[in-house]
């Protein structure tokens, strides 16, 4: 099997993740609840994972690293935690439904306004210009994906950060496709950044894990309240991190696996992972361009390109993905939960076939896939 659907979830996971989860399942109690060994075991996994993530993203305080169920959960906390009735947000034209749907719901429920700063693919200059022009008196934040989950386009988040800092806005970054695959150093950011990511994509960890990093002391309303194992006699939700956003039993087993994965990724380095994935993306592009009737979406100079590539073929995207699946090549077809991205890029009616790589994919696998696609006849 050749797995090119790492933008959906990474496969395989980092070495040792499954074993660590199994070990945690057999030894961990409920972290932050008791003082006995199994409870401390769970708490230890969680704290070490906070530390490992702090190192990865250069966060000063591990308590600013909050565990969530996934990136969507983290983004909902961020978006709904910040935006109130009458506020305004600016979003890019490439946002996933994990951003668009919460904003849409807030728009309907609380009259939160939003502007979509839509710019052509890989045009960071125009994106920044449109974002800044969209700022109003009631703008509270800019929300931007770091990397488009459809086209792999890397957004200029450092420049958007400068815009946010200049206008006193909060910056919510969806790092779903970049965390672990592209270096992110939060020391370089000047605005109030909130970074959201899943544990199960380029961090190479298990599903059911996600991370929300509040880089500074940004005030966020809670999405849920409940037991935190701290200050139990107080009916108010704790106002300190991470407890404020970690109600209920945390997924310590999953976090144990995530710790193993993050240590693995830290060991290689996101810069080297990015270099590897770009090499594969370039090779795939070169191959896809040889297939008659195919349009490939990529950055011609490969500067703003990640290891995610989309293409439109002569046949429907679902048929092509089906053909590839019959040959044991895993891709994703359709709108990728990002109708906005497709609308902005002009692929809403066709959808695309998406190829997304990880550190475990090889050039040989890309060549094999291209050979099989070259043999595609009328499907």
């Amino acid at each position: 099997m050749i797995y090119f659907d790492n933008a959906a979830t990474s496969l395989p996971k980092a070495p040792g993740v499954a074993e660590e989860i199994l070990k945690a399942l057999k030894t961990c109690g409920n972290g932050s609840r008791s003082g006995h060994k199994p409870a401390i075991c769970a708490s230890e996994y969680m704290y070490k994972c906070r530390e490992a993530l702090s190192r990865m993203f250069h966060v000063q305080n591990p308590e600013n690293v909050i565990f969530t169920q996934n990136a969507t959960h983290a983004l909902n906390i961020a978006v709904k935690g910040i935006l109130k009735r009458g506020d305004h947000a600016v979003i890019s034209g490439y946002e996933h439904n994990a951003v668009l749907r919460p904003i849409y719901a807030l728009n309907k429920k609380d009259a939160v306004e939003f502007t979509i700063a839509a710019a052509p693919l890989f045009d960071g200059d125009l994106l920044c210009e449109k974002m800044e022009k969209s700022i109003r008196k009631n703008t509270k934040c800019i929300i931007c994906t770091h990397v488009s989950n459809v086209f792999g386009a890397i957004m200029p988040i450092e420049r958007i950060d400068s815009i946010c800092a200049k206008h006193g806005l909060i910056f919510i970054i969806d790092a779903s496709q970049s965390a672990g695959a592209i270096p992110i150093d939060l020391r370089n950011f000047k605005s109030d950044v909130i970074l959201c990511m899943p544990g199960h994509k380029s961090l190479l960890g298990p599903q059911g894990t996600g991370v929300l990093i509040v880089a500074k002391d940004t005030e966020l309303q809670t999405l849920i309240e409940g037991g935190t194992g701290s200050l139990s006699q107080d009916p108010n939700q704790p106002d300190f991190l991470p407890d404020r956003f970690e109600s209920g039993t945390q997924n310590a087993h999953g976090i144990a696996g995530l710790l193993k994965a993050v240590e693995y990724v830290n060991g290689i380095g996101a810069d080297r992972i990015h270099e590897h994935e770009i090499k594969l993306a370039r090779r795939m592009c070169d191959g896809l361009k040889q297939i008659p009737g195919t349009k490939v979406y990529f950055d011609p100079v490969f500067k703003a390109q990640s290891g995610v590539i989309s293409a439109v073929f002569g046949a429907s995207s679902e048929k092509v993905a089906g053909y590839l699946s019959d040959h044991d090549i895993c891709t994703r077809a359709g709108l990728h939960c990002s109708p906005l991205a497709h609308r902005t890029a002009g692929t809403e009616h066709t959808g695309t076939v998406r190829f997304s790589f990880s550190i475990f994919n090889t050039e040989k696998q890309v060549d094999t896939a291209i050979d099989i696609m070259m043999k595609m006849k009328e499907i």
Partner: protein
Amino acid sequence: MNCLIIFRSITYAQKAVKILERAGITAYIKRPPREITGISCSYAVKVPSYWCDKALALLRERHLDYVKVI
């Protein structure tokens, strides 16, 4: 004899232990009884008494808030 440095949550107790261990002070996390802390569901970092002053100074230096010291 030991001193107990009381924290609001386990995350802060864990952070304290790391700070103290890096400075060569052995510290352990315990669940302290409510009768002595006055608050329920807190975590204590247990430190030998002769290290207490130094431990507190280190934690203050690192801006790590504790609830009280017993």
